[in-house]
């Protein structure tokens, strides 16, 4: 176990280094000089040169890459070219919107998928299964930004239950939460559909196992056997998916944030790309990639810990 953990940690470190290199190289290729974007077309050459020196753009790429990585390790993501504040501050501000949004969406998705998946597996091939499977098929096919538009039309414009966009900030927690409900639903429904399908097939697989037959033989109903014994065994693939979905929700909110004008991480990276705020682009992308790699690593380790069969190997 310690050896395999060590191996995993080594792979983790390698992935992070490779990812940082890939991001740095990709951003290097982006055309356009941040300094001239910041100062406009009429900037004098000496002002441009001074700004380039201030931003460190006159240094060779290797030096800039090492500086960037060393900074990140200290928690210093550099200064945003456009906002002139530390990128870490920008990220923290945006995470205050994106994290609760992703969390809310994930809770909603699980709350929907759990009963739906259980019902579909328990009444396999019957009406509840057909309804859930049909609904899931539909849910996967619906683009979340279109769903968001429909939700806004109905629940914000027609019935005025929720605001149609914008974010008031966490000074007014209730208002802030209300602003996040519709985006969270729009994000959650397609994810719930995917989760339902995985849960359903994991439960159906578990149903074929001997321990379910034993549980049934000792007198449990099909639903009881599924809830008490099947669910726990179906948890592994579902937990893996939930882990992956969280990082997806964090990044996948980009489009939803556009629909609702939410000042989240997605909007930050989107604006940063169009404004050539390269340091922000690099850092936010790196953060998102780190989140995915870390979640994958944690689910790997959690798997080994949770499943005795994997541990023994």
């Amino acid at each position, binding site marked *: 176990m310690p050896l395999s953990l060590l191996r995993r940690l080594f792979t983790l470190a*390698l*992935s992070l280094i*490779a*990812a940082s290199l*890939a991001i740095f190289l*990709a*951003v290097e*290729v*982006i*055309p356009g000089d941040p300094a001239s974007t910041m100062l406009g077309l009429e900037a004098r050459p000496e002002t441009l040169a001074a700004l380039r020196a201030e931003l460190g753009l006159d240094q060779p790429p290797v030096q800039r890459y090492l500086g960037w990585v060393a900074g990140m390790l200290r928690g210093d993501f550099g200064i945003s070219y456009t906002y002139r504040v530390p990128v870490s501050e920008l990220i923290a501000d945006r995470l205050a919107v994106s994290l609760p949004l992703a969390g809310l969406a994930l809770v909603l998705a699980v709350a929907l998928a759990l009963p739906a998946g259980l019902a579909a597996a328990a009444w396999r091939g019957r009406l509840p299964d057909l309804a859930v499977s049909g609904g899931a*098929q*539909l849910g*996967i*096919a*619906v*683009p979340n*930004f*279109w769903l968001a*538009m*429909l939700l*806004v*039309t109905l629940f914000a*414009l027609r019935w005025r239950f929720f605001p149609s966009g914008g974010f008031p900030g966490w000074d007014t927690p209730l208002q802030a939460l209300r602003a996040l409900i519709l985006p969270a639903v729009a994000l959650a429904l397609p994810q719930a559909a995917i989760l339902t399908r995985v849960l359903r097939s994991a439960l159906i697989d578990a149903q074929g196992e001997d321990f379910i037959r034993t549980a049934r033989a000792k007198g449990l109903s099909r639903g009881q056997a599924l809830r008490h014994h099947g669910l726990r065994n179906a948890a592994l693939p579902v937990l893996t998916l939930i882990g992956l979905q969280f*990082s*997806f929700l*964090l*990044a*996948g909110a*980009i*489009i939803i944030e*556009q*629909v609702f004008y939410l000042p989240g991480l997605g909007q930050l*990276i*989107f604006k940063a*790309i*169009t404004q050539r705020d390269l340091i922000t*682009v690099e850092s936010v*992308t790196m953060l*998102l*990639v780190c989140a*995915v*790699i870390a979640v*994958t690593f944690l689910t790997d380790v959690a798997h080994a810990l949770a499943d005795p069969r994997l541990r023994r190997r």
Partner: protein
Amino acid sequence: MKRSLILGAALTGLMAAAALLAFAWVPYDVAAVDIPSKLQPPSTAHLLGTERYGRDILSMLMLGAQTSLAVALVAVGIGMGAGVPLGLAAAATRGSLLDEALSRTSDLIFAFPSLVTAILITATFGPSALNAILAIGLFNVPVFAKLTRGAALALWQREFILAARTFGKSRPRISLEHILPNLASLLIVQGTIQFSLGILAEAGLSYVGLGAQSPTPSWGRMLADAQTLVGIAPHTALFPGLAIVAAVMGFNLLGDGLRDALDPRLKAGRT
């Protein structure tokens, strides 16, 4: 289930037919702006109504189907064209440097949020349908490479491959003549799934302005245009959205149906 195959084939067939027909004929010219008849609800003259410049929504949807299909088709083509040979080679040389490098690179690409990377790519090389194709296609490569490698590795253990090896056939020949044909159904099924994901991705990129550019019609951009009008003319948002849903569902159902039809073991396992 036969039902999903039939429904899926019908939906995708309808989309393909609309796209093909649009090469020859559309009800109205979408290049012509007709402001007096803007935002009309569905009528006999305009079956699905008109949008904010008075253009016929049905005609735009038909032309948009061409964009969606073309982007998804080429993106899946890129994924298969590069991913399948890589996966075959990795499986044939199991444990080699190539195999290891492929696995690591695939994992690395999977770690990148696809949408962020697609935005990065389109922002770098400029927004266009072509760059959207490249961005979506790039993410299809590791999908097909991993799938091919995994399935091919299992096949390499089978007796008929052993027979071919004792017969003296080279590894590349075995990969092409014996492994690949046995992977065909798996690849077709995955292809339809990636196809539907491609349609969704294209719509999303076009919606944020990074996909097909004007005047190329695109379902995603139609939705973006409809966003501010959804309160007064809901049909401008309804029909493009339904088109996306129908297309994506069609390809998903087709994939499900094909998997059941092509793989008898799965069907037996289900009943």
